[in-house]
């Protein structure tokens, strides 16, 4: 490991971005990222996550008043070529006129690192990302997964102060994406470099991020660890964007929500008009309807291998999705009882 525990702490201060014509793609945002931390910017397309990344990289200037600080030093007006950041793009963005080794060593060459030293570093990088046999290969002879590994090696070869990745796995097919995701996770842990990772895929965000910044419409919806975001979403947008979520609406009486199919206990609920609550599909248990306080009828049943995805009607105002054990035996049309363990229902503010 050549770059253990490297990187800077990072602070975005009041960074907004308005394009000519007055379209504000990013509302003023402030964000603090610790040295060595891996932070994922997650959101649907157009939410401003790539704009944020490009402001950190120095490819875009924030609107007047916004500042970018690396280890407390204002770098807002430093151009990208002087910021020493590593970038990885969805399109790989390799240099087609150079070999694999030429690509990885390009940053070192620009920095006039002597040839022998350069070769050593390039070899170490290739080992690190697992492409040590591809040294003199031409870039267009590589598979998508290999290309992205080259791009990664190239980005970390100069020991950047921060590593920036913009949807690096989106162009790959599903099985390759899974494998590379695992390798990325190990790489980030072993490099220990400050990393900002942009994606629209919540699975990637969960697997890779120490913290996740959920964005929507140019603003931050929530910042938190994967399990905070999943179990305690700040609002309905986060609840529905991260994983699958059943949104329940009904009147509350002390700690009980009244639903078409019965009653549901909610910790911390207070009597009010209508409350909105969320429960995850895998948190709902299927039991016998006899004596159950909340019941419904199986509407559809799809076997997904590792689980059985059921939709249950008549339980709430709209159909509810339940992920049950793949061993469960039920038929479409069956009347079933639904149970939810304490603490698995979360009240939403909006």
């Amino acid at each position: 490991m050549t770059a253990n525990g490297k990187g800077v702490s990072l602070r975005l201060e009041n960074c907004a971005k308005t394009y000519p014509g007055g379209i504000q793609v990013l509302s003023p945002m402030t964000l603090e990222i610790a040295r060595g931390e891996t932070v994922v910017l997650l959101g649907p397309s157009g939410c401003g996550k790539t704009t944020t990344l490009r402001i950190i990289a120095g490819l875009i200037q924030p609107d007047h008043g916004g500042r970018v600080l690396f280890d407390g030093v204002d770098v807002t007006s430093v151009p990208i070529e002087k910021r020493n950041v590593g970038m990885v793009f969805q399109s790989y963005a390799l240099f087609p006129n150079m070999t694999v080794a030429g690509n990885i060593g390009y940053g070192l060459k620009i920095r006039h690192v002597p040839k022998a030293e350069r070769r050593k570093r390039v070899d170490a990088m290739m080992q690190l990302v697992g492409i040590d046999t591809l040294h003199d290969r031409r870039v267009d002879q590589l598979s998508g997964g290999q290309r992205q590994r080259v791009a990664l090696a190239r980005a970390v070869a100069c020991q950047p102060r921060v590593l920036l990745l913009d949807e690096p796995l989106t162009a790959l097919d599903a099985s390759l994406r899974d494998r590379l995701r695992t390798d990325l996770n190990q790489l980030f842990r072993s490099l220990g470099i400050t990393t900002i990772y942009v994606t629209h895929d919540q699975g990637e965000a969960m697997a890779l991020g120490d913290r996740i910044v959920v964005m929507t419409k140019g603003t931050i919806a929530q910042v938190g660890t994967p399990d905070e975001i999943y179990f305690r979403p700040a609002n309905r947008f986060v609840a529905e964007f991260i994983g699958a979520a059943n949104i329940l609406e009904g009147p509350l009486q002390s700690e009980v929500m009244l639903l078409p199919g019965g009653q549901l206990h909610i910790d911390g609920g207070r009597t009010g008009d209508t409350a909105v609550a969320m429960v995850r599909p895998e948190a709902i248990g299927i039991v016998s309807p006899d004596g159950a306080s909340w019941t419904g009828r199986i509407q559809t049943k799809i076997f997904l291998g590792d689980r059985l995805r059921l939709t249950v009607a008549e339980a709430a105002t709209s159909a509810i999705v339940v992920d049950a054990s793949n061993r469960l035996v039920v038929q479409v049309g069956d009347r079933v009882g639904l149970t939810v363990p304490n603490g698995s229902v979360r009240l939403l503010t909006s």
Partner: protein
Amino acid sequence: MSSRMFVALCLAPLLIVAAAFFVLPLARLVVVGASGPDGAAAYLAILTEPRYRESLVATVILAVATTVATLITATIVGLFVQRHDFPGRSVLVALLTFPLALPGVVVGFMIILLAGRQGLIGEVARALTGQRLVFAYAAGGLFLGYLYFSIPRVILTIMASVEKLDPQVEEAARALGAGAWAVHRDVILPALVPAFIASGAICFATAMGAFGTAFTLATRTDVLPMVIYTEFTLNANFAMAAALSVGLGIVTWAALAVSRSAAGTSVAAAG
């Protein structure tokens, strides 16, 4: 299967006619080239007879100079126009590409108006130095005329290639510490090489064979197409004219073939 058979049956006769249309005149040309008093030695005369050899050399030099000058100018202008948005940009592009519509004789005519005996440049030069500057009728005028002809075509090719460049590749280079100069040297120009090869070859082939321009301008310089015309029309030396034609064809065809194999078949469509 049945669709293929259908097409094949319809088209085979047409194909034969078309092939004959292309092959017959060519064959005839090659035969006539060897039909003069010297026989097949007429082909050798292209290199041994000083007049023919000199005109071949002059043509090649002119074509190479035109190609190099065109590529440099068109790259600089093409990069600038494609990468910068400024008021009047589309007017400039329209102006730059207007000469596409002009046939060779009009271009030649314009060069004479500019650098000929009553030309603008001559008058400006006389006002400044007391001496008329007239270069329309020699190699200089031909060179200018060819440039006028080639630059718009090549600018369009370069602009199309620049448009297709992935901006993220440049951003990646900049992230690695490359300044503007290094980005151009290491990323942009290498990516344009296929466009250079393709449009350079076409530029060369056009300059080798351009006739309209040469006809109006080449009164003091002998380029090969002019020599062919003279041998054919004025000297009625059919065999020599045919031999020279075949020679000229082979040189330009080779240039196109080399470029096509160097840049991949897709470039052929730009011909």
